[in-house]
């Protein structure tokens, strides 16, 4: 199991949650897990075995090469996490409103309501 496979597995678990659960909160949890899978995926793309933080210090340029991890996916994922949180927050706000209107969070019962 490489990290990439595990992250795809997490993504799939999240997708399963979104598709099969009836509770709205559980659907949002699925979405968050999907997001987590993507974060893991990007981080494992940038990972290098025994890599250091890519910081260039004074006096380290001496012809030898050091292995560093790719910082770009990590920077991207900071943005993606923030976006994921705002989507989750919006979804939870909608859920609060839906619950106060219908007194249920079950999607089967909600679809019966008019």
């Amino acid at each position, binding site marked *: 199991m490489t990290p990439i496979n595990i992250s795809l597995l997490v993504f799939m678990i999240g997708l399963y949650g979104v598709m099969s659960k009836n509770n709205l909160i559980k659907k949002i949890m699925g979405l968050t897990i999907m997001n987590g899978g*993507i974060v893991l995926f990007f981080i494992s793309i940038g990972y290098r075995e025994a890599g250091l933080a890519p910081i260039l210090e004074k006096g380290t340029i001496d012809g030898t090469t050091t292995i560093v991890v790719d910082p770009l996916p990590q920077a991207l994922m900071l943005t993606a996490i923030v*976006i994921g949180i705002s989507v989750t927050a919006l979804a939870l706000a909608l859920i609060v409103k839906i619950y106060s209107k219908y007194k249920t969070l079950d999607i089967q019962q909600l679809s019966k309501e008019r």
Partner: protein
Amino acid sequence: MSIHIPILIIISPLLAAFLVLLSRKYKIILATASIITSIVFVSTLSSRILSGDKVIYHLGGWRGPLGISLVVDGLSFFFSLIVLGLGLLVIIYSIPERRYGRTYYFLLLVSLSSMIGVIYTTDIFNMYIFYELLSLAVYLLIAYPKTGVTLRASFNYLIMGGVGLSFFLLGVGFLYAMTGTLDMFHIAGRLSAAFDSSMQMVIMSFALIATGMGIKIAVFPLHGWLPDAHSMAPSPVSALLSGITVKIGIYCLIRVIYTVFSAEIFLLINSHNILMVLGVVSLLFGASMALVQKDLKRLLAYSTINQLGIVLIGLGIGTELGLTGALFHVLNHAIMKSTLFFCASIMISEAGTREIQGLSGFGRQQPAITFAFIVASLGMIGIPPINGFASKWLICLAAVEAGYTFLVVIILTASAIAAAYYFRVIQVLFGGSLKQGPMPAHEGEQVINRDNLFRSWPIYILAAGCLLLGLLPTLGISLVKPAVSLLLFHVVP
């Protein structure tokens, strides 16, 4: 100043969005002025773009794969013109309704500015960010009336849209893993080498991105959110969603297919056939579902699925004629569908019901609005002097030329079904006298003055646009030409 124009087009509505939140009095003037400013900026670029040039702007002066660039070429110019033109009309159309407060205009401006962001950016992760921003604003706009149905529709769209964009982001991850860059033009340069070594990963990333965008443009098996979201939203927002927002998905699909996965890879993995099949299926599905709808706005929403099917068929054919037809149909559908939604809003608030049967007699009361509705629906069906005919004709011609004659049969069948459902509405409009029913809960509290200037003029302008593009289709085709030659030959015409 003049080199900063691409970023100013995005900044102007975004800045106005936050200013709108601060001012109670001037919100409408600010919103309109910022969109007009953007339109002026775009039109200063028009002569350069239409002659085949392109404008590239490096954000912060960082070039190439390091920084994010904005590019205005034939394709992005065409789409940004649709977004800004219709966005202005949507804002004007929402003016008479008093219940739209500051947050409404804020969200509208944020969504418009992020749409232009999606269109102009060359960085594929940046595209994702703008798309997510756009989606957040749109979810809130759908839920704006805060009634039960709109909340549910918005939540459904949020779940589907969230999954779609997650797929897109995962696809971007695969692209980054293969090429080590996020700039679309640089990915394109390195992808053919990656295709030789790891074909599965290229196909995987294409499948993920296409699925993600497929959810956003509501291709048949992934369309579940669209009918609710488009029909339950407040009417100006319905026009925005149906006219513009789904087109952004089409834009991303075109950009990704033709710029990132160059046309050769696209042909190699046979995805044009997939697009064509999806187009045919959603064409027939949308048409037949629209036929059985009783709710006017729901009918229009299913008709959107139908028309987007035609666009996908045009993209799937992929020849010069097919692409011209598809892009031209994008423009035509944007104009026609916003006309229809604007008209439907007036009809619903006059009749007090969303049921088609309840609209009988509207045609005698307001002949001008009804005329606009008939013009746009004839365009949807594809009857000659209206613009919808020109683009459908181009796509049919392309299908015959490329040897897919059965597609013509399918498009004509769908047009016949479209005729059935639009004529049903038109027939009802000229039926017995109009009964003033009770207002549906989510359509607003007060009846808006029926001959309000801001209500009727956007409709007349759009209907005139339908007729103009129908009578002089070369006008629209000349707008599409730079985009098509850019996509097919990567060169200026």
